[in-house]
């Protein structure tokens, strides 16, 4: 492509966007709103996923031994657990350590312990980590059947509900993405259709003097891509600003919530939106030109 051709494309694109001022504005706004919703959804989804993963990785099986279990029994059980498929790590927590930990957690309310006297109510126990959260249920059940094991427990309900939520979000997200992409595509291809219609004389003359299809297509494609790109820019700015603000709010009030930090997350989300906006713009133009060029 020669320099004069590129110059020609850029001039034509610029002229056309200005000439269709209102429709161009409407297209950019639509792309911006769609991508904004998409971007927000993406952030919610990624954060929920992150939260679920955090909790999953924290979830462990607590195995409590019976009071009459001997050191020998403990060692047998530890060995048996270690040999189970999917088990990552087994930590023995002697009853003294459990009490100490409990004391630490009570902080300045130590007097609650005084009523226990010298007795240590905690049994010996194991903390068991599993390499993937799906295996937790089975491993836990298997451990429960071992001799001298009183009980094996884990935060079953929380994990399963979170799993359910990420599944719903993923499914809803896909539907939302398809719906928004179609709406955006429709608006952009409609705008380009108007542009093509406004310039049909030029297109006809171009065809008669022997311009190639791609030469005719490029200015319109560039127009669609420019509209998509600017829409994405608007959406990105809003997302970047609001996520930053939201993050500092959450840090101030709900500090325990594990949120994804702004970098590099927002870089990825911004890049995604720019690519999606530009791509949808190109596709929209291509669709509306397909019919027109079939002469």
């Amino acid at each position, binding site marked *: 492509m*020669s320099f004069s*051709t590129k110059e020609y494309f850029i001039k034509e694109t610029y002229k056309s966007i200005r000439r269709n001022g209102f429709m161009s504005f409407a297209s950019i706004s639509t792309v911006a709103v769609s991508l904004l919703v998409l971007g927000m959804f993406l952030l919610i989804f990624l954060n929920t996923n992150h939260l679920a993963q955090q909790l999953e990785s924290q979830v462990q099986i607590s195995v409590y031994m019976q009071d009459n279990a001997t050191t020998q029994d403990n060692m047998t059980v530890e060995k048996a657990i270690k040999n189970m498929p999917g088990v990552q790590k087994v930590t023995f927590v002697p009853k003294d350590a459990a009490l100490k930990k409990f004391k630490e957690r009570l902080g300045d309310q130590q007097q609650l312990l005084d009523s226990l006297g010298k007795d240590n109510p905690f049994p010996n126990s194991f903390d068991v980590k599993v390499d993937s959260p799906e295996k937790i249920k089975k491993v836990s059940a298997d451990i429960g059947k071992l001799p001298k094991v009183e009980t094996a427990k884990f935060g079953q309900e929380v994990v399963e509900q979170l799993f359910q939520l990420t599944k719903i979000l993923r499914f809803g997200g896909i539907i939302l993405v398809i719906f928004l992409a179609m709406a955006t595509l429709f608006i952009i291809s409609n705008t380009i259709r108007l542009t093509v219609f406004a310039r049909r004389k030029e297109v006809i003359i171009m065809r008669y*003097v*022997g*311009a190639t299809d791609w030469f005719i297509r490029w200015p319109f494609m560039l127009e669609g891509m420019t509209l998509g790109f600017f829409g994405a820019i608007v959406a990105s700015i809003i997302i970047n600003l609001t996520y930053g603000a939201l993050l500092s709010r959450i840090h101030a009030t709900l500090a325990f919530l594990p949120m994804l930090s702004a970098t590099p997350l927002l870089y990825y989300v911004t890049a995604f939106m720019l690519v999606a906006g530009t791509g949808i713009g190109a596709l929209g133009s291509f669709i509306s030109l397909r019919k027109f060029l079939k002469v």
Partner: protein
Amino acid sequence: MLLMSNISKVYPGGSVALEDVNVHIEPGEFVFVVGPSGAGKSTFFKMLFREIKPTTGSIVVNGVDILELTDKEIPYYRRQLGIIFQDYRLLPDRTVYENVAFAMQVIETPHRKIKRRVMNVLDLVGLRKRADAYPNELSGGEQQRIAIARAIVNEPQLVIADEPTGNLDPDTSWEIMNIFKEINESGTTIVMATHAKDIVDAMGKRVIAIEKGHIVRDEMNGGYGYEF
């Protein structure tokens, strides 16, 4: 230059536009195509620039069977043609210069070649001085001259003109015809549909008459042959 053999065109729905048309045109010829409206002239022209395909038959231009061209090849074929319409088809938001240069830009001619060539053809059609005017500031005859300049700016071998003087008064028509004559004398083949009896009779060129989809007459140094 141009060889059409056994061309027939039946439109979807069954109306027959052309039937068994055979035409052979040598390079450098000037050919009038005459006949009543609806006789098939438009179909004939549309086939020449490969806007439509005949139902049967073959069309060979410059040794190339244009019915075999792929969609990608058609633009390059059209670059050998100059096409002129009755209604000029200029772009109203571009100047005279830009209208003519447009035809060179869209086939990706380098910048530096465009200016000189456009000025040359504007000279040829006598409108160099109006290069910065817009089409609506020009008379019909001047607009058609711009359209001619645009059609020949890429130096086509074959110029196809569909009633180029149809909207013009007799004096202006003659001005236009003189330009066509000049183009023809430089070696370009011209095929022109027209209803201008005086012009056809006075020029004494080859005349092909089409009626109801058939060629009814094809004579050298022919006359218009109809009353109007």
